[in-house]
């Protein structure tokens, strides 16, 4: 059913249709609306047969999820930023135990400095924890991916993180098609756990594994992600047959067939990128873009196929590998192993800095001329940076950097972007 609603609410409805049995979450901006929505649905019994638990921390949230999932219940939680870090130990634990928990990440920057706005640093911090990571480009895809996520998680016995850009998607009103319960039931069968705490068949879960077998256990986790490379497109195809639209999959290409320049990105910024691609195509540029949906497992072969014939690849990163560059670039470079082309990393949108059409247009033009640095920070205020570096060079006790810079930025409230 078509609705005009807030992204978070649409996601909550999709999750409710998946018949979760245990929902446990701790509030953190910008995920709060999702969990509040679900909490209300449980209280009114609109979402029946579901336990909603108000936990005391994110660490508790993932821990409760681990217990519930290990006992055979379909389990969901959500977090962002600091919360994801606070549950980090449990995030790795859930993957190591092979528990099919589904978690929404309302992508938000990690402090210090504290920042509530969107970027990908949070999910990037857990990219190697063993979870599958899917990035939604639109609110429609955000709700669709959760349905696919439960199916994927349960078939593989592997937890799945669905990443939805905080505020930009979570707090935006969009037109979405929320599936009917029957449609979701036809796609997502009841959860049959591979292992469960059951007095009728007692097992010990989570015992120590020594040097004799640890390599093998970890290899099997690696293998599981490689299997996901095949399963993700399959489930996306099946989703299309059931629901009538393309959603998910490993990656999507946009006007890349004859492109000399291809832009790669994760998440919502792809919408703006496609607009710029259209503008530049109209001006005669041979430019296209690739939106990667499955970041873990990273689709090396599909990326190589999509990017390998271009002259240059520009990777837009909403996260920073401090001192190095980006995270998405690593996977892209690896996929192009042996192929010679120019690769550019552009760090953009950190902490919610808007990525504008105009800036991208200029950026892509520079890229076409190969007039870009290896690593660029988009729309960096060079004056501000120069000021602070000069200030720090003058004295030892210069006080906190962020505060000094903010003093120069002026009244934020009077600015639009």
């Amino acid at each position, binding site marked *: 059913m078509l609705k005009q609603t807030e992204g978070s609410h649409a996601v909550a409805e999709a999750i409710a249709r998946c018949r979760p049995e245990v929902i446990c979450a701790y509030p953190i901006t910008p995920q709060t609306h999702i969990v509040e929505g679900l909490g209300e649905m449980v209280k009114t019994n609109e979402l029946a047969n579901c336990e909603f638990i108000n936990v005391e921390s994110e*660490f508790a949230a993932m*821990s409760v999820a681990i*217990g519930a999932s290990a006992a055979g219940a379909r389990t969901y939680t959500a977090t962002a930023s600091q919360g994801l870090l606070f549950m980090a130990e449990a995030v790795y634990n859930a993957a190591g135990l092979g528990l099919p928990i589904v978690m929404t990440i309302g992508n938000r920057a990690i402090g210090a400095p504290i920042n509530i706005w969107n970027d990908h640093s949070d999910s990037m911090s857990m990219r190697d924890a063993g979870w599958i990571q899917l990035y939604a480009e639109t609110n429609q895809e955000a709700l669709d991916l959760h349905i696919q996520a439960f199916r994927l998680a349960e078939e593989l016995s592997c937890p799945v993180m669905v990443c939805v850009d905080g505020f930009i998607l979570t707090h935006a009103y969009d037109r979405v098609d929320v599936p009917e319960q029957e449609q979701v039931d036809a796609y997502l069968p009841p959860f049959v756990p591979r292992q469960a705490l059951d*007095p009728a068949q007692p097992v*010990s879960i989570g015992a*120590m594994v020594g040097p004799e077998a640890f390599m093998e256990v970890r290899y099997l986790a690696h293998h599981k992600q490689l299997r996901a490379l095949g399963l993700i497109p399959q489930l996306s195809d099946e989703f299309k047959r059931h629901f009538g639209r393309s959603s998910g999959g490993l990656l999507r290409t946009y006007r890349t067939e004859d492109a000399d320049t291809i832009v790669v990105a994760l998440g919502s910024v792809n919408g703006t990128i496609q607009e710029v691609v259209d503008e530049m195509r109209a001006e005669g540029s041979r430019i296209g873009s690739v939106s990667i949906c499955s970041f873990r497992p990273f689709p090396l072969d599909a990326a190589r196929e999509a990017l390998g014939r271009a002259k240059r690849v520009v990777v837009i990163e909403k996260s920073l590998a401090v001192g190095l560059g980006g995270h998405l670039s690593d996977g892209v470079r690896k996929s192009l192993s042996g192929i010679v082309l120019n690769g550019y990393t552009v760090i953009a949108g950190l902490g919610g800095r808007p990525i504008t059409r105009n800036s991208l247009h200029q950026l892509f033009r520079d890229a076409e001329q190969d007039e870009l640095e290896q690593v660029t920070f988009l729309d960096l205020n060079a004056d501000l940076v120069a000021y602070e570096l000069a200030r720090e060079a003058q004295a030892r006790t210069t006080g906190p950097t962020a505060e000094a810079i903010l003093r120069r930025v002026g009244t934020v409230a009077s600015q639009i972007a």
Partner: protein
Amino acid sequence: MEMQPIKFYQTATFTVGNRLLGEHERSVQANMRRTNSLNSGHRACQGCGEALGARYAIDAAMRASDSQLAAVNATGCLEVFSTPYPETSWQIPWIHSLFGNAAAVASGVAAAMRVKGQEDVRVIAQGGDGGTTDIGFGCLSGMFERNDDVLYICYDNEAYMNTGVQRSSATPPAARTATTAAVGTAPGNVFGTGKNVPLIAMAHCIPYVATASVANLRDLEFKVTKAMPIRGSRYIHIHVPCPLGWGSAPADTIKVARLAVESGLFPLFEAEHGEFVNSTKIRRKVPVDEYLSLQKRFAHLFAKPVDSTRIALIQAIADHNVKRFELLG
């Protein structure tokens, strides 16, 4: 013939011959049909108080729940010695997640059982003092606050034993540990630190809180059996000597535990919904010296010259407990 009532004070496994007690009063361990939930073959040290306590507690819980039980274990000695790869000595559904989250994981298991209509499957969370009073404290309080249907059992050997005897918030004053060396002007653990988790559990007003000791295994079984049918959060804190960490003789484990109780240093009591209900009276009070002198972790108190000041401070703690928990007749 004149009949004289005889009161059996000690009705533990090896005394009085359980056959003299009624069926319902006998130890679970005396029963051929006991579940051996923590089976033999585990790798605990000789004289391990925790292994003893866990065996009694879990088998009692299994009997009380008609063997419908799942256990969640924090990282620690019990978890490590009971599941040495590739073996497990647990005969029940059991999960180990992390060090600090046993209470939360157990809350999750209980929620799952509820939603699946399997409320008859009861949940126990267990951990050592480290995993309960320190790193697991947040999750423990959260579980209590929500009144989640879990029985949490803390095996308190008063330090982080599995990692090499480091100090925890359950370590008693003056005790030597790897991080509270018995040197300097204030040897051993600092006085005036530490927390009393049973009292904190009471402050949450949960249905049932009790302390127990491996010195009185019948009492331990009785308390577990009492706790099991209750719905909501329950907490049992069991004092378990660690011969290795305490520097006591493995054969003295139960004796040392008994002296802790009889000196007043480890009070045995029960509370319900935040109100103190009863305590086990000390039959024969002993000075703390008798307890302390059996453990090398307190040896520095007895090195010449004897540290009578600190021993007196410890005695004061014991005396305070006696008054506070009404431990004397």
